[in-house]
């Protein structure tokens, strides 16, 4: 077990290092960040001063070297635009993104699994066909369109939900969480629904496919013949065996949503990390982008590790190597 953990840790460090190199190289193509910060009629002397203050007056290799040495000391660099530590900027916004993603994922699972199991067990019923058609819509409708339609219907037309922003928050362990207030839930519903639709549709279809494949297996008929209830047959015997690909997709989607819920955050003015990322890309704010993408790589690595552990829990035949 220890050997396995060590191997994963080394892999993780390698991934993070490669990501940082790629981002540094990419950012050299997106324009000089100095010009986003100084006034347009700045003289050469003023620009040189700005370069010096931002640490941009040295070669890329030297800048990367400085970045690595600061990194091991825990200093992730300061944003060019905000002049605040990049990591602080990202962590400030993380609770908002994470809570929206968690609510979206919870919604997705709550709807996708039962419907997927039903559609898989009764593939030819009319209800199943409606469910599958619905899932097609969920996959193909673009998030920004769905979001705007929801805002128009529920906020502007019927006035049931607020159109944007995060609700009141309460503090828990020093983090501001809006799920602890009624106003917070009121604000999170529309963005979470918008975000959940794509994942919901994918999970539903995977669950159905898995269930249909498992349904053909002999042990299912045997369990039914043994006298297990229909619910036990479907969920305890069937679903558990169909779950491996579903869990894989779930892990990937979770990482994807946390890292790139940008469009939903922009539409709903949700103060999350995704919006910071897109703004930083527009403004060529390299320190924030490099820290953000390394953090995203870390999140993906951790999630995949947890998914691997979950495999062993679902299917005892799988072992960690």
């Amino acid at each position, binding site marked *: 077990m220890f050997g396995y953990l060590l191997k994963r840790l080394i892999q993780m460090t390698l991934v993070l290092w490669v990501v940082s190199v790629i981002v540094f190289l990419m950012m050299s193509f*997106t*324009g*000089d*960040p100095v*010009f*986003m*910060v*100084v*006034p*347009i*009629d*700045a*003289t*050469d*002397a*003023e620009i040189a*001063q*700005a370069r010096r*203050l931002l640490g941009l007056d040295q070669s890329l290799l030297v800048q990367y070297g400085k970045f690595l040495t600061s990194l091991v000391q825990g200093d992730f660099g300061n944003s060019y*635009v*905000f*002049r*605040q530590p990049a990591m602080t*900027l990202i962590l*400030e*916004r993380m609770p908002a993104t994470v809570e929206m993603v968690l609510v979206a994922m919870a919604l997705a699972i709550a709807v996708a699994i039962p419907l997927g199991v039903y559609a898989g067990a009764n593939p030819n019923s009319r209800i199943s066909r409606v469910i599958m058609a619905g899932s097609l819509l969920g996959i193909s409708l673009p998030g920004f369109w769905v979001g*705007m339609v929801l*805002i*128009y219907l529920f*906020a*502007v037309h019927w*006035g049931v939900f*607020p*159109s*944007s*922003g*995060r609700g*009141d928050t309460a503090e828990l362990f020093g983090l*501001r969480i809006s799920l602890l*207030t*009624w*106003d917070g839930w009121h604000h999170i519903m529309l963005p979470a629904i918008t975000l959940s639709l794509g994942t919901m549709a994918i999970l539903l279809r995977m669950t159905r496919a898995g269930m249909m494949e498992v349904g053909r297996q002999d042990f299912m008929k045997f369990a039914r013949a043994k006298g297990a209830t229909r619910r036990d047959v479907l969920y305890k015997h069937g679903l558990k065996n169909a779950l491996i690909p579903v869990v894989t997709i779930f892990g990937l989607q979770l990482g994807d949503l946390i890292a790139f819920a940008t469009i939903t955050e*922009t*539409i*709903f*003015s949700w*103060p*999350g990390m995704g*919006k*910071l990322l897109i*703004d930083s890309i*527009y*403004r*060529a704010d390299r320190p924030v982008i490099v820290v953000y993408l390394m953090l995203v790589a870390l999140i993906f690595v951790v999630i995949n590790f947890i998914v691997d552990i979950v495999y062993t829990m679902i299917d005892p035949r799988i072992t960690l190597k």
Partner: protein
Amino acid sequence: MKYLSQTALRAGAVGVAVLAAAASMAQADGKSVTIGLTSDPSHLYPLAGEELSSNIMYYHLYDPLVKRAGDLSFGPGLAESWENVDETTWRFKLRDGVTFHNGNAFTASDVVFTVEKARESIRPDLVANIASITAVDDTTVEIKTPKPYAVLPNDLAELLILDEEYTTATGDTDMDLKPMGTGPYMLDQWIKEEKLVLKAFDGYWAGAPKIKEVTFRPITNPATRTAALLTGEVDVIQDLAVRDVDRVKKEGGFSVITRPSLLNVVLAMDMRENSPTIEGKNPMTDQRVRAAIAQAIDVDAINKIVMNGLATPSDQYVPASHIGHVDGLNFREMYPLDIEGAKALMAEAGYADGFTMTLDATNNRYVNDAQIAQALASMLAKINIDLQLNIMPKSNFWGYIRVPTENSSFIMSGWDVPSGDAGSMYGALFYTRGKKDGYGQVNRGSYSNAEMDALVDKADSTPKIEERDALLQEATKILMADVPMIPLHYEQDIYAARDGVMLEPRVDKFLWAYDMDVN
């Protein structure tokens, strides 16, 4: 299970009661307004950077010595009065009895401190025309300029005064989060990307603000911003999307307020013998070719079709309110739309067959910039100019077109002059490059006219505004005849507000809650 749900119910009821009580308390305190901005401010420290949302915050929290009003007129701010002691020396008499939000008295040493801090910050341009500053006594400062400079007060309208004691103790990084100024509002709460709340500073020297609480909500998506206005979540929004104008007008209870912006969209033409994207000799060195290009562009069509009528064709390089504007002179009358006339000019110059060149433009900086570029390509094709379009995001654009302009022949960009003085624009854009430090640093077309340079030099050497105005007007006439740059149109600033909000839009696009009122 039952026990848990009962406790939850009780907790919920208490929570709702507390929220309701807090809400009613906030409303009982006085007028408040919620403003939807296009983006969250990046800074609250004036010397950290310049960007519209941050600028809007600076002027709520801080004050300059000279105040710039919404119509670009200048008047006393923290300085009550000023005078020239001699050609290069100014004395500013500071207002007595002004305090910062923390109670510290505002004195001359704070002004001296601010100037020195600006010089070593990322905004030394704010004090470029201040050679030295001394505090004569607690309420008088003496400023020496490097040479006679008539518009020093206009420049000082952008220098916001810091509290020496507080700023030194707090440090630059934290000043961005914990501002301390003499302005009409204090920072109550700033949750990044969510809301920024200001509350009134009742001890403000010009009188306590009418609106006691101002909440700024950054909503970048234009459709969501309009939705927030229509649902009542915000009272005023900045930059109403052009396609939503009709919708908001039709909806009862809201009004759309527009005014021409200061931002002039301009086309800079290269005037070097050899231009990077043109083969052979550069045709634009001939004034007739430049005039032909100007006469091939149908600014009214661009206004109607690309800008939906929400642009104002430019008459000169600066608006009528500015020093250096010549009454009655109109670019559109000097170079009216005339394809036949343009073709004749091209033929006269020897380019009846036209030539090929590239237009560099942005796609995310000016309203419909990419579409304007496309329209220009089709218009110039009529006089046989094959315009290749090179469109890029603004983060790449500024570095790409930067002087010494090694990549560009024809550039579409914008220029605004919040100081109300054409001299700063002419000095930066049209003065011969490389001749004098601090001049011509944005002269992307390499335009050089010794007569124009001399006029700018003389204008920058006189302490009298009327003389400066006269000299700059002569420069304007030369530039309009030479046409190194074609001014297209001024964009339109579009705001929307619910009924009951009194908003008079400022020319410089800043929003100032002190001037607003709410019913």
